[in-house]
């Protein structure tokens, strides 16, 4: 929240953007005045307030459409129906252009009507009355145009008792209650939900050291297909509305001015830099020298002298014999010996190569005999027997919860339904659920429809990892369900 405020760093720039949106909030219909469909839609509402309070662009567009309707209605005054068209068209629902009438129907229509009048005719059928003649013209498909409403969020706050609404009718909203501009939608609502399932973060995968990427909330299914290859499939994600609060607290003196004055005090600044302070540590160093005198008196000086005399530096020089050893332990000589051994091996290899280079080898590999033995008939017969038209097995996992909301202390029952959607068997099927830290597994609550076992281990983050292992391979087109309960922390 606040980090976002820092990143934007343009609070007042954002306010400018809000002002732009405020203008759109005040005249929402103006956004649609440029499109004829929106203008027609506003007319379709039929409410009188639109004609009174709508802005000028809307009236202009509506007036143009109405004028077109008037044009057609002027011709319809000569129609047999004899209805007064002008007020009727203004109240009709707009319909799309109508295809031409059949020739038979056109022949029975009164003379003096052109093709354009035929196109207007369905409007009268639609609104005013059924056709007076016996000919049933092609009835147009009435499209009810729903006026487009701007997608707004929280334009005005809800009212509270005593005050019906913050925004009086007809007046614009206060600047603070603006429409949420694009890009400013709240995205951090996920922290109010307790989710489990799926594969968030790093996808679960295998490397040379084992399984990786199994974070909390992850629920996956592991299996091996008929080829022995391991696969991982995530489950669906289930979320429960269960917000939990905590507090950070501190206690301090409420008077902050005193603390500020102390920081700005001159004495506090000058004190550490004073000359007196620098002299004080020098006197303490002299005290250390006094301690050194005590050490000298405590230990016998004779022993010290003896130790000094025993410091025969000649012995230390003897230790330089190691330098000679170093020269003697030269690894060059060893390496040379190893190289010689290696050379001998290479020599043997060369001899072997000479032995293999003989023509005898070529004669021994009688390809003709092998090709005659490997007849294709046997292979074809074997292929027919091995062929399996069943589809490879695959696992589909669905995780469900028995409630939508929960408070700390409530018990939630999770149900994991897995199904082999393929035709072949799945081997070593395991359902792994790494619980989120706010879920506490209830001991002994796990159950399964199929034979298997459940292993519970700590995930290192305060919750557990539940692993359901099936004893038998999962046949194709079969399913199973495991159920367990957790307590919401």
């Amino acid at each position: 929240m606040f980090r976002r405020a820092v990143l934007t760093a343009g609070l007042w720039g954002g306010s400018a953007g809000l002002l732009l949106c405020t203008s759109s909030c005040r005249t929402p219909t103006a956004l649609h005045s440029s499109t004829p469909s929106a203008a027609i839609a506003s007319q379709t509402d039929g409410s009188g307030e639109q004609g009174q309070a709508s802005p000028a662009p809307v009236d202009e567009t509506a007036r143009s459409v109405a004028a077109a309707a008037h044009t057609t209605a002027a011709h319809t005054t000569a129609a047999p129906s004899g209805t007064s068209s002008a007020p009727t068209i203004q109240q009709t629902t707009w319909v799309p252009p109508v295809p031409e009438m059949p020739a038979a129907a056109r022949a029975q229509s009164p003379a003096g009507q052109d093709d354009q009048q035929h196109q207007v005719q369905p409007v009268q059928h639609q609104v005013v009355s059924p056709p007076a003649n016996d000919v049933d013209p092609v009835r147009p498909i009435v499209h009810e145009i729903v006026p487009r409403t701007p997608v707004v969020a929280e334009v005005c706050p809800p009212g509270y008792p005593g005050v019906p609404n913050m925004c009086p009718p007809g007046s614009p909203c206060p600047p603070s209650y603006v429409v949420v501009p694009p890009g400013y939608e709240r995205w951090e609502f996920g922290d109010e939900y307790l989710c489990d399932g799926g594969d968030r973060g790093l996808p679960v995968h295998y490397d040379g050291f084992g399984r990786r990427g199994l974070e909390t909330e992850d629920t996956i299914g592991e299996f091996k297909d008929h080829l022995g290859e391991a696969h991982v499939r995530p489950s669906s994600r289930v979320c429960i509305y269960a917000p939990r609060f905590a507090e950070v607290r501190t206690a301090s003196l409420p008077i902050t001015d005193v603390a500020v004055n102390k920081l700005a005090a001159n004495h506090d600044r000058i004190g550490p830099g004073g000359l007196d302070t620098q002299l004080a540590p020098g006197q303490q160093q002299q005290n250390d020298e006094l301690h050194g005198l005590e050490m000298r008196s405590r230990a016998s000086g004779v022993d010290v002298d003896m130790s000094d005399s025993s410091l025969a530096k000649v012995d230390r020089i003897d230790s330089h014999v190691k330098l000679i050893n170093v020269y003697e332990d030269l690894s060059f000589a060893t390496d040379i010996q190893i190289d010689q051994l290696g050379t001998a091996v290479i020599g043997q290899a060369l001899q072997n190569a000479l032995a293999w280079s003989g023509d005898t080898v070529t004669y021994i590999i009688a390809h003709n005999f092998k090709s005659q033995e490997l007849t294709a008939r046997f292979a074809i017969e074997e292929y027919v027997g091995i062929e399996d038209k069943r589809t490879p097995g695959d696992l589909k996992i669905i995780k469900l919860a028995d409630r939508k909301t929960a408070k700390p202390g409530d018990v939630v029952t999770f149900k994991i339904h897995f199904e082999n959607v393929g035709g072949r068997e799945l081997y070593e099927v395991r359902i792994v659920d790494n619980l989120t830290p706010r879920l506490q597994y209830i001991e002994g609550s796990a159950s399964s429809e199929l034979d298997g076992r459940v292993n519970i281990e700590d995930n290192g983050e305060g919750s557990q990892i539940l692993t359901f292992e099936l004893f038998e391979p999962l046949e194709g087109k079969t399913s199973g369900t495991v159920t367990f309960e957790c307590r919401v922390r």
Partner: protein
Amino acid sequence: MSDLLARLIAVAFVSGLFVPGLAAHAQESGYYYPLNQRLPLGEVARWNATIHPGLYGQTQPVRITLPSTGHVTYYDGRSPQGVLADAPSQAGLLVGNVYRVRISGMPEFPGIELYPSIELLDRLHPPPGQEQNFPVPVTFTVEEIETALQDRMVTKVVYLEQPQRAAPFDQKDGPHIEDVPPSSNLLEAADQRGRPIAIVRLGGRIPDANAGAAFFGPPVPVVFPTQVPQPPAQP
């Protein structure tokens, strides 16, 4: 005034030591947090309402809990006496505003009245019909009241825990409370752990007889639930 002293004052001005509550505290997380709990009442809420358009004025149920029993008085400007309610009390407060309530009638502290303030920063988004079942908890413990009676001010930031980083233990007696040093930025600490929802300040200040209604600030409506909250409905 010596030249050294003049230089020290200049350095203090540049480093922001004379701006209370803004730059005098080190940032613990590496991010720059311009807001903290020491700003004037309502400043943080106004910032948040400006950052998130459409948030200001939304009603968020808040549940005030005392150590055992007592009374909670809300001041919404309708009457100078306020609206008295039994604790624990739940009412709807408008986001982006500051409320000052009175807690009294506590058997642990006979005759004691305190006037904490609640600055509502954000709100929840529960499923429709479940708004009253998930209020923001504002609790006052015995030690907090004792601290306030010692002329110290207790400041708390109630935040919504991030589920992936939530503390893995049960909440038995109300929300988990973590004490931080007074020099810390509570909003920064709360933002590192979740989403700050409210700032609660509890001190020993009482209304001044000469100040009148100014002590309670501008009147802000309080929405009282029409019915007792029901437990969460089972699906």
